[in-house]
């Protein structure tokens, strides 16, 4: 009895520790991506911890609210952050078990992301700015294409691992059947990487450094936020990128047999690696024209479908 209890406590501590690593290192991922891009394009670029400094600066400032906004606009950053935090609780960050796991939690994960996006869109529309409305409409259009792709990946993972919870899909159960499902996992990793670029508003779908409102997608939706509100939104965005990075790490790095500290160290290393990969994509690819983006997302989904078909034969 005590043995099983201590095992439970241990797995809980490991999950909490990995969650802590994710929360602390999340702002580093966009920073690493930006630094990689700067180095590859021959610039020095801001330090990788720039986002921490930005967040700290914003947190101490006051927020300015337009008179046309209502309470929805003030609620948006809080709901967005809360939903993203909840989404990170269902991913097995230490490669074994998530903090929360129940069967069908993959749907909850997509639901939390959708909730965050829903409030982002509401907040953007609440400002009454036509630019923000346009950005919101683009964001929702692309998200509605990303989500089916994500579900294809989840279905394939569920078939591959024989489990219905993300902790089974990405944890030890997947690795027990590694020899059978290896090609599918490679395809799914590619699929999740493409979907991550689209979902987290990175090049080639959206450019986080663009300066023209007309071409922005995600950036334009936070244009009217300021101070602590903006800090929360920026942090949520970084956290979402790290979450997708964590799914990728779960797919390609088996960590279920490692001790907790080893799993956490690999998580940190993996986050940095994904940051570098995103940076390399950003410095070698131009942004796609808007009509081309659905094709990009569809190729991500097609990779996932290919993986699923390989499992079904």
């Amino acid at each position: 009895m005590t043995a099983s209890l201590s095992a439970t406590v241990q797995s809980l501590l490991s999950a909490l520790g990995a969650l802590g690593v994710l929360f602390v290192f999340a702002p580093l991922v966009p920073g690493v991506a930006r630094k990689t891009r700067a180095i590859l394009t021959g610039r020095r670029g801001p330090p990788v911890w720039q986002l921490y400094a930005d967040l700290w600066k914003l947190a101490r400032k006051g927020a300015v609210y337009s008179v046309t906004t209502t309470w929805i606009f003030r609620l948006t950053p809080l709901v967005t952050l809360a939903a993203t935090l909840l989404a990170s609780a269902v991913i097995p960050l230490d490669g074994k078990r998530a903090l929360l796991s129940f069967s069908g939690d993959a749907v909850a994960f997509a639901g939390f992301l959708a909730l965050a996006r829903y409030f982002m869109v509401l907040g953007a529309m609440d400002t009454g700015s036509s630019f923000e409305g346009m950005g919101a409409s683009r964001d929702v259009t692309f998200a509605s294409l990303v989500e089916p792709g994500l579900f294809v990946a989840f279905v394939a993972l569920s078939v591959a691992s024989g489990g219905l919870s993300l902790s089974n899909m990405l944890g030890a159960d997947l690795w027990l059947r590694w020899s059978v499902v290896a090609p599918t996992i490679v395809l799914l990793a590619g699929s999740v990487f493409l979907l991550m670029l689209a979902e987290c508003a990175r090049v080639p779908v959206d450019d986080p450094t663009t300066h023209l409102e007309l071409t922005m997608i995600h950036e334009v939706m936070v244009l009217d936020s300021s101070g602590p509100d903006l800090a929360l939104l920026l942090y949520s965005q970084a956290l979402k990128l790290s979450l997708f990075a964590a799914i990728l790490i779960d797919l390609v790095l088996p960590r279920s047999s490692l001790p907790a500290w080893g799993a956490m160290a690999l998580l940190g290393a993996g986050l940095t690696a994904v940051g570098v990969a995103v940076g390399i994509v950003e410095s070698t690819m131009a942004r796609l024209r808007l009509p081309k983006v659905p094709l990009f997302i569809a190729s991500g989904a097609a990779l996932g479908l290919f993986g699923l078909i390989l499992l079904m034969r």
Partner: protein
Amino acid sequence: MGSLTEFLLFLIVLSDFAVLGTSRLSSCIRAVALQGLLLGLLPLVIDESLTPHAVGLAAGTVAVKAIVLPSFLRWAIREAAVRREVEPLVGYTASLALGVGALAVAFAVANVLPVRSSEAELLIPAALVTVMIGLIVLVTRAKALLQVVGYLMLENGIYLFGLTQARRVPFLVEAGVLLDVFVGVFIMGIVVFHINREFDSISADRLTELRE
């Protein structure tokens, strides 16, 4: 060497999808060249024994499908000065969806087909899907040059299917097939060149009107 065979087949199917999803002609040609290279390597990996028959077949395939035909197609697009497929009859996203459908059908059909490949489980579905995607490209693209690419993929699929019987087919037959493809693509390239000179475009839909 089963897993290496599977890996090559896997890349071949991915190159099918690369042709299906890109509009830039040079990228399509590059994907087909890569496919030709993989096809050439495949018999060596399957057979493992480096008999003169296998090596000759591989060398001939790589030379024709990965080097001669792609560079010829590149010459054709340079002469005709076209870079992109602008108006495919079926959009790229839809063709990708069709491709995935073809993949599903290929795996379903391969399961009930009486032909069994002892070498690689993936060989027959990969052959079927390459044939079907080649057909999709052939039918849905308006530029005559991409239709040539589609024809090449179709032939690649047939070649893949032939690999299930690789040890039984005599060398001369294989060489004859390669020669046929070479001549076929060559003629098509010349025709494309002439179409372009005559109509200032290589869209096949211009060919519906007869002129004296």
